[in-house]
């Protein structure tokens, strides 16, 4: 069972259809999944899931970045985790990696920097973000665009972050994560 975390600013928001449902529609045919809003997560209840995906949000939605304490469970979690856009930014803040301004909207050329099980080579992806991460202590950059780091992996844990939106284009990345 895969947990998809709704990272939008409130429960049952208008952005749910745009940022959460497209993830579910890719993951669900491969493995049963459940959706929970980030405010409703019980860290003690995470054991029942094999993997966790943190969704993206609308460009103006910075709610999770202001409530990083709600994600302290990420540090203790031994599951495979994938943070998408706001999900990656939030994971970075959990590990005290500072964010840097980087606005990108639209199709963007991505270059893979390190071998990883999710993607390889150069490819185009849909970007919609205000922030990226700078050089990290706990993560290595596994992909970049001409402007910023586009994907990261924790140096010890199975925690990944992608700034671009694989649920919009590059759905195979989500499928590969589901099948890890």
């Amino acid at each position, binding site marked *: 069972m895969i947990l998809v975390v709704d990272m939008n600013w409130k429960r049952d928001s*208008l952005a749910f259809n745009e940022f959460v449902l497209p993830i579910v529609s890719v993951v669900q045919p491969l493995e049963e999944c459940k959706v929970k809003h980030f405010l409703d997560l019980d860290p003690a209840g995470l054991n029942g899931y094999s993997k966790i995906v943190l969704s993206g949000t*609308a460009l103006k939605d910075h709610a999770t970045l202001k409530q990083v304490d709600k994600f302290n469970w990420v540090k203790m979690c031994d599951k495979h985790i994938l943070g998408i856009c706001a999900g990656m930014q939030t994971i970075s803040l959990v590990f005290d990696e500072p964010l840097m301004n980087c606005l990108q909207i639209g199709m963007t050329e991505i270059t893979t920097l390190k071998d990883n099980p999710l993607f390889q080579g150069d490819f185009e992806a849909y970007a919609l973000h205000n922030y990226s991460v700078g050089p990290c202590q706990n993560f290595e950059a596994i992909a970049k665009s001409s402007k910023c780091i586009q994907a990261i992996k924790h140096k010890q844990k199975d925690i990944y972050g992608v700034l671009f939106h694989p649920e919009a284009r590059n759905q195979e990345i989500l499928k590969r994560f589901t099948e890890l």
Partner: protein
Amino acid sequence: MRLGVLFSGGKDSTLALHLAKEKEGVACLITVVSKNKESYMFHTPNIDVTALQAEALGLPLVSVVTEGRKEEELADLERAIAEAKSKFQIDGIVTGAVESVYQASRVQRICNRLDVWCFNPLWKHDQKALLETLVDRQFKVIISGVFAYPLDEKWLGKQIGPQVIARLVELQSKFGISPSGEGGEIETTVLDAPMFKQKIEILDYAVEAKGNCGVFIIKQARLVTK
């Protein structure tokens, strides 16, 4: 949140309006009338009917005209959203984008410049399911434009119902046509929907068609009691 809906009068923007209204407040409709029949961004047949649809919905309409040149029409869209923000104090806009990154990213950039939210509640949704949702929710939607082989004038004016959906899905598997017309293969006009306080009755129309391109033009219409 107070929202403005980018409204073409077609099925996607009207369904997006309904989804938006279920979660937030809708303050106005925003329409860009393109003089270019092959507009890159904006649906064109029967765009004039939006005034009647806005009246049926009981919502104010912010309408701007564009010549429809590729990047200029984006400046005109920005002008329209800025006007809606200043007149109706909207916090964000809603679009009916389903698949087009071209449309979605351009609207996102405008919203970012104007500091308003951008919502796309139909984004990436299954196109057949979207058509079925319209039927389930009792939308009355007609096909008002066809622009791809093997569609022709016989489709014009047809109401979207189970048989039309089945035929469009069949054409998808044979010819790669997007069943909801996301690739610009079909355009639609909504005559009635749950939020309409009155419905639209067509009094006079004209069909202009040549080969696999054609439009159903509503020449005269009125609002009638539902």
